[in-house]
């Protein structure tokens, strides 16, 4: 079985990346915050995609998390960043808990369409709800951390960066553990053939539902980050093109490696900000060509750039194992 990096190595890596933020210039700091937040929601899509289902409506949970946090922040004055992330995750997770069991029966294109439809239901409702600011949305205050209020914008940016990198890092570690667990392996089996999985006595629907809820939790937390970074929320959070971008990151990353999700998200943000700077009217064009290039030349995502080697190494161990079995038998 694939071992991957050790738990402590991963924790050390997250800590190192967080501290690295101290030396980064301010503009990279906010870019990295967005990248980490997008990586979190894309990670959820990857988790779900391991069951063979791609959600084109993660904007639903993204918006649910964002609006939940924004409303609670404005109503009760909860400004703590960590609390907001938890609220976002809980909002996303609760919605996932309601929708997950209903949606787990579907697969392939119908799964994608249904998730898209549900996110557009929310979008349609939000655009027309005057109490929530309609299509303009509304603003929220600056986040704080453990009672500290950051007035220096650089410190505030670093705080947000640190919280988002640590959260996303922890989610990444959790996902790595999940991928190696029984559930994670069952998910891959569901992707191959859900009926065979049912014959083996595992409920495929249950596997899909649990993965769906995990993806919803990640998306809700990501919505909280997007809210904190922009200090503004509008129905665009739930629009299908927003969800499309997250699927974009997931495809770019491929479904094999957690680290690839972060690299892909960062790559996308870099491409976006550079083409915003140099090609202001054509960044979608650049994005489209980029996506086509990845699908064409790296069909298994950028993760395949470094995962491939490990697969080659695996083959001899697998044959060795079967040979050993032969001896025992």
């Amino acid at each position, binding site marked *: 079985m694939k071992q991957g990096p050790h738990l402590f190595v991963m924790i050390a890596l997250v800590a190192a990346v967080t501290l690295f933020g101290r030396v980064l210039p301010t503009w990279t700091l906010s870019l990295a915050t967005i990248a980490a937040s997008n990586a979190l929601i894309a990670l959820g899509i990857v988790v779900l995609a391991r069951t063979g289902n791609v959600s084109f409506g993660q904007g639903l949970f993204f918006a649910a998390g964002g609006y939940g946090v924004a409303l609670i922040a404005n109503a009760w004055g909860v400004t703590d960043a960590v609390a907001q992330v938890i609220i976002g995750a809980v909002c996303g997770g609760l919605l996932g808990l309601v929708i997950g069991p209903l949606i787990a029966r579907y697969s392939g294109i119908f799964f994608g369409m249904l998730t898209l439809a549900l996110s*557009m239901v929310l979008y349609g409702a939000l655009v027309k709800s005057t109490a929530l600011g309609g299509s303009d949305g509304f603003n929220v205050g600056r986040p704080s951390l453990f009672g500290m209020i950051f007035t220096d914008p650089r410190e505030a940016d670093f705080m947000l960066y640190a919280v988002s990198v640590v959260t996303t890092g922890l989610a990444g570690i959790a996902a790595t553990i999940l991928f190696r667990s029984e559930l994670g392996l069952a998910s891959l089996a569901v992707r191959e053939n859900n009926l065979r999985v049912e014959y083996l006595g595992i409920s495929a629907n249950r596997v899909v539902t649990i993965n769906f809820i995990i993806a919803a939790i990640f998306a809700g937390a990501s919505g909280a980050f997007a809210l904190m970074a922009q200090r503004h929320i509008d129905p665009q959070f739930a629009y299908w093109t927003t969800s499309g971008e997250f699927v974009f990151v997931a495809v770019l990353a491929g479904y094999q490696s957690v680290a690839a999700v972060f690299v892909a998200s960062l790559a996308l943000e870099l491409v976006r900000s550079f083409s915003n700077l140099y090609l202001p009217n054509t960044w979608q064009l650049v994005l489209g060509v980029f996506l086509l290039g990845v699908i064409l030349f790296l069909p298994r995502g950028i993760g395949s750039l470094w995962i491939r080697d490990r697969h080659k190494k695996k083959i001899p161990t697998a044959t060795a194992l079967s040979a050993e079995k032969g001896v025992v038998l």
Partner: protein
Amino acid sequence: MNFFLTIVLDGLIQACWLFIVALGLTLVFGVLKILNIAHGSFYALGAYIAATAVTLVAAHGLPPSLGFVAMLVSVALIASAVGFLLERGLLKMFYGRDEVVLLLVTYAVFLILEDVTKLIWGVNPIYATQPYELFGNVEFAGLYYVGYDLVLIPISAAIGFAIWFGLNRTITGKIVLAVIHNEEMSVSMGVRVNRVYAVAFAFGVLLASLAGALTAPKISMQPGLSSDVIILSFAIVVIGGLGSVEGAAVGAVLVGLARAASVHLMPQAELFMIYLIMAAVLMFRPEGLFKRETARRI
């Protein structure tokens, strides 16, 4: 009663152009098994080309009836060429990959076309209203309707009938149906599936852009048009069943009526209603209203 009639007629007018767009989407899915996210972009492309044609004709002092013809002809020519080239030049490379991968390829095409239309036509709203007055106003049951809107009803009915007839009553149509049912078998029977793919895709693009051209005089063309249209046509084909012509018709009428009803009765629920219908249909009949159940491999 009159109020009810208004809703029905408004709904039918909406359903007309929606039906033409959805027909293209459902045809492409039926033949190529691609759910084309870029379909809305072809609608927008048709609308923009039509606007240019109409404006050019008007600038030369020619009558608007000529503008109407010029817009349809130019859109038909350009759209089918774009569709054909796109299928041969790009989509062909991804056949045999996962359905979801093809979905993403069309998403990339959507992103690219979104900016291409911005580069050519700019970001400010464009109008092409001249042909809209072509058929005058018509009084119907005490209400005044723009003649152009009512003309759309027979036009879309004719297009729908032509597609149905072409698919079910001609040799070419039967070949296309054979490809839809079983591609491998068709190949072994000597059907040039590649050619069917290219023509079907070009036809799908043609239908989307014709709908765009026909609605161009009614609306203002601006960025964001394509993403709104694709969402509506997705809802229609999912309600009707992917790949079904009858389904597209019924779905279009349902969505058109739902839109008209919510505009008149409860304007805040417009988008919401359509998606609620779509989600409800998917919950109870995931294959859509008009799709037969298919066997699956165990």
